């Protein structure tokens, strides 16, 4: 846990590069980024901001905050149920932006990336959303159902407000599509390590390694790997290959198990994250020059 003692050092104006700064800092330290994903408002809206702070204490470098959506087509049942729990409290995009603003009151250094679906952003309007997100202190936006082909207007709005557009890459992405995503993205690229939805079963590390090599030949952006990373051991193996390890369903599953005992959520999530952090640092310290 001590590895992540963070003091607020950056002025708000520097928020443009919070993600880039984070990856540069880690690179200098020979470490990899740990990016936990939680759904905002799960299991209740009051827990989200304290949980974000606690995850930073437990070693998170970037936080991906899921924006609840009624029809999360690309997610598995675990994250869909998280959305449903949050939607019971009517946690939607506006409320999520409020949570980021609250988080920023105490933490001006940890990047926050919103991850969700396009429709809530469409309804708010791209320009309005980008401005509101910047004001709240959002650093990146990953819209899972918006591929590069459809992204130009939103990317323009996000960039104009200093927010990094982040894109997914998949095992099925061709070189042409990797280049396209790489040209539009800022911050990092999110490699979906297996075919399927979030929380799916198996992860072939050798496969991931080969694909990351192909991707690196086409883009200089840092590469995060998510989907299928269930424990510290898997995270450690991925940390040897990627710039960032993204842990989502494993955390959300833990939250679900403890939904009726919310007092236990923060300590248990922190324990899990700390294990992942230590496993990652253990291997990267020896493999990164």
């Amino acid at each position: 846990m001590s590895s992540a003692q963070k003091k607020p050092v950056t002025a708000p104006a520097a928020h443009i590069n919070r993600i880039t700064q984070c990856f540069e800092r880690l690179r200098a330290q020979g470490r990899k980024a740990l990016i936990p994903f939680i759904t905002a408002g799960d299991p209740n809206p009051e827990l989200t901001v304290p949980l974000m702070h606690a995850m930073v204490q437990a070693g998170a470098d970037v936080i991906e905050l899921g924006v609840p959506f009624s029809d999360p087509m690309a997610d598995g049942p675990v994250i869909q149920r998280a959305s449903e729990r949050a939607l019971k409290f009517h946690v939607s995009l506006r409320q999520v932006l409020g949570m980021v603003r609250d988080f920023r009151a105490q933490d001006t250094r940890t990047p926050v990336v919103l991850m969700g679906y396009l429709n809530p952003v469409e309804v708010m309007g791209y320009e309005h959303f980008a401005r509101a997100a910047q004001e709240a202190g959002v650093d990146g936006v990953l819209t899972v159902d918006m591929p590069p082909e459809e992204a130009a207007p939103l990317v323009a709005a996000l960039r104009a407000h200093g927010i990094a557009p982040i894109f997914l890459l998949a095992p099925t992405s061709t070189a042409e599509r990797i280049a396209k995503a790489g040209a539009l993205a800022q911050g990092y690229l999110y490699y979906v390590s297996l075919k399927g939805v979030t929380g799916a079963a198996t992860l072939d590390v050798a496969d991931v390694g080969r694909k990351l090599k192909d991707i690196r030949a086409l883009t200089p952006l840092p590469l995060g790997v998510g989907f299928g990373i269930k424990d510290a051991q898997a995270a450690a193996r991925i940390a040897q290959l990627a710039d960032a390890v993204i842990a989502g369903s494993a955390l959300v599953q833990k939250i679900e198990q403890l939904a009726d005992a919310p007092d236990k959520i923060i300590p248990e999530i922190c324990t899990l994250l700390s294990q992942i952090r230590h496993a990652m640092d253990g291997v990267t310290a020896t493999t990164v020059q």
Partner: protein
Amino acid sequence: MSALASSVLPDANGHFGPYGGRFVAETLMQPLEELRLAYERYKHDPEFIAEFEHDLKHYVGRPSPLYFAARWNRQLGGAKIYLKREDLNHTGAHKVNNTIGQALLAKRMGKTRIIAETGAGQHGVATATVAARLGLTCVVYMGSEDIKRQALNVYRMKLLGASVVPVESGSKTLKDALNEAMRDWVTNVDNTFYIIGTVAGPHPYPMLVRDFQCVIGREARAQILEQEGRLPDALIACVGGGSNAIGLFHPFLDDASVKLYGVEAAGEGLNTGHHAATLCKGRPGVLHGNRTYLIEDDDGQIIETHSISAGLDYPGVGPEHAWLKDSGRANYVAVTDDEALKAFHDLTRIEGIMPALESSHALAYAAKLAPAMQQDQIIIVNLSGRGDKDIHTVAAREGIKV
């Protein structure tokens, strides 16, 4: 004749004006592109077209008749009403036109497993049917609420050898079944072909489903020219996702004198909040892979819809309909559950034809429109499906236990 040639729209990226497109997670982009390329190749392939047309004729029973509803016409007065009898197709609805086409594509693409989503069960049955005939594994996703409402079709699918997977997430209806089918596809994309049942979803689905369904309008156009020696004045079809409507409308799009009416489900009334009238009451957004009109709240969350007809109970609509609405080429109206039920009974008693509750919406609007038109004018209504599947719904509504 190249039977499947499509018009200028959609553009290369699947856009109908601002609508349509391809809004899916990255993993599906390549499979969708492969599907598009396969379709672009086979839609001009004489062998593919010949096989499609052969199956439509000998397996589906096409061409379906264009029937003049003379007795109903006399009772209503006004314009002559012709019914395009898609209810007489094998499996009892227009859905099979599309599943035949997509299954032929699946076979040529070397896929061994078919998946589909279904609401009322008609598309699920049509998919299970073609899968049985081609010896392909078939998995149908269906909301658990719909499974309760449509027990007969669930059993039909099982008899045909399909696995019916209940979907317990969200509102447990069609939209959730679609989410689940997409998840299956993303996971099993190597051997699996996803047969979407309507003109919605990511490109190329709205285009290819339309092209397969256009046989309805092409036949109707030739039949009315033969029977009346002229084009109709109006076409009427119900719109849930909109596949039977686009199939009828599309071959008439360039005939400016032919008015097009898409009829949505007003449920308990357009101002009650309990309806499925996406084009009448919704607004543009992005869901299920395309930009189109949606029924949603102020936060962009999709709202549960209501219709007595499970096949119209969907919070989105095909993107080409969104475009036809905005461009003014087609008119979109809505009729209530009660109006549709009246049309169901009227057609059954007056013409001896029991229409599906979906199609009853189109008939109900015809009953409003015809009396306001001249006697020498002509309406074609798409009778998209037969009503046997709805008998339990109608009986329950009237307090009768079957």
